[in-house]
């Protein structure tokens, strides 16, 4: 059961990667990166249930915070590019 769910979620991640590769502007890529980061938290929860270890969820927690800070930095960068135009 849980292997099937992991396979479906991996296919969804490939859809996200498609948007990262093709997105017309930089903002589209930032959005796709944000969404991929939230889905990786779900992967952490799956691995934690599959193996019974808790450190996968610790990794997911740290990943969520780092993703948050990274996306905020990307947003600041995009805004700063607007000042120069």
């Amino acid at each position, binding site marked *: *059961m*849980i292997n099937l*769910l992991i396979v*479906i*979620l991996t*296919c*969804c*991640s490939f*859809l*996200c990667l*498609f*948007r990262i590769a093709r997105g017309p*502007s*930089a*903002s*589209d890529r*930032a*959005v*796709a990166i*944000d*969404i991929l980061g*939230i*889905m990786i*938290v*779900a992967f*952490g*929860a*799956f691995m*934690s*249930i599959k193996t*019974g270890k*808790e450190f996968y*969820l*610790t990794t*997911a*927690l740290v990943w*969520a*915070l780092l*993703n*948050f800070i990274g*996306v*905020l930095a*990307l*947003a*600041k960068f*995009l*805004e700063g*590019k*607007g*000042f120069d*135009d």
Partner: protein
Amino acid sequence: MRETIGYLFMFIGVVFDAIGCIGLIRLPDLYNRLQASLKCVAMGTSFILLGTMIIAGFSPVGAKAFLCLLFVLIISPTTEHALARASYIAGVKMWEKSTVDRLKEDNVARERIRVE
């Protein structure tokens, strides 16, 4: 019994993640993609973490899943707002069938953003 309910929640979560990623491909412009996908994916991930909490019960795994759920619910609207504002200021165009754009009509506000 508890595992069955947990796996049911996880299945609903994965379905919502899939819908969010399909929306990321199908929708026409950035703002619609941002809302649709981020809402669906945040809800899917919340349901997966809720299923993890139900399966694990009162254990370290359950407590950390609760903390993850809290963080996902806090950070996803914040990043949504930050990305929408940044893309508007960076000049990403809206879809051509959009109806109104009050932010463009109130030009004063936009000038104030640029000065800050």
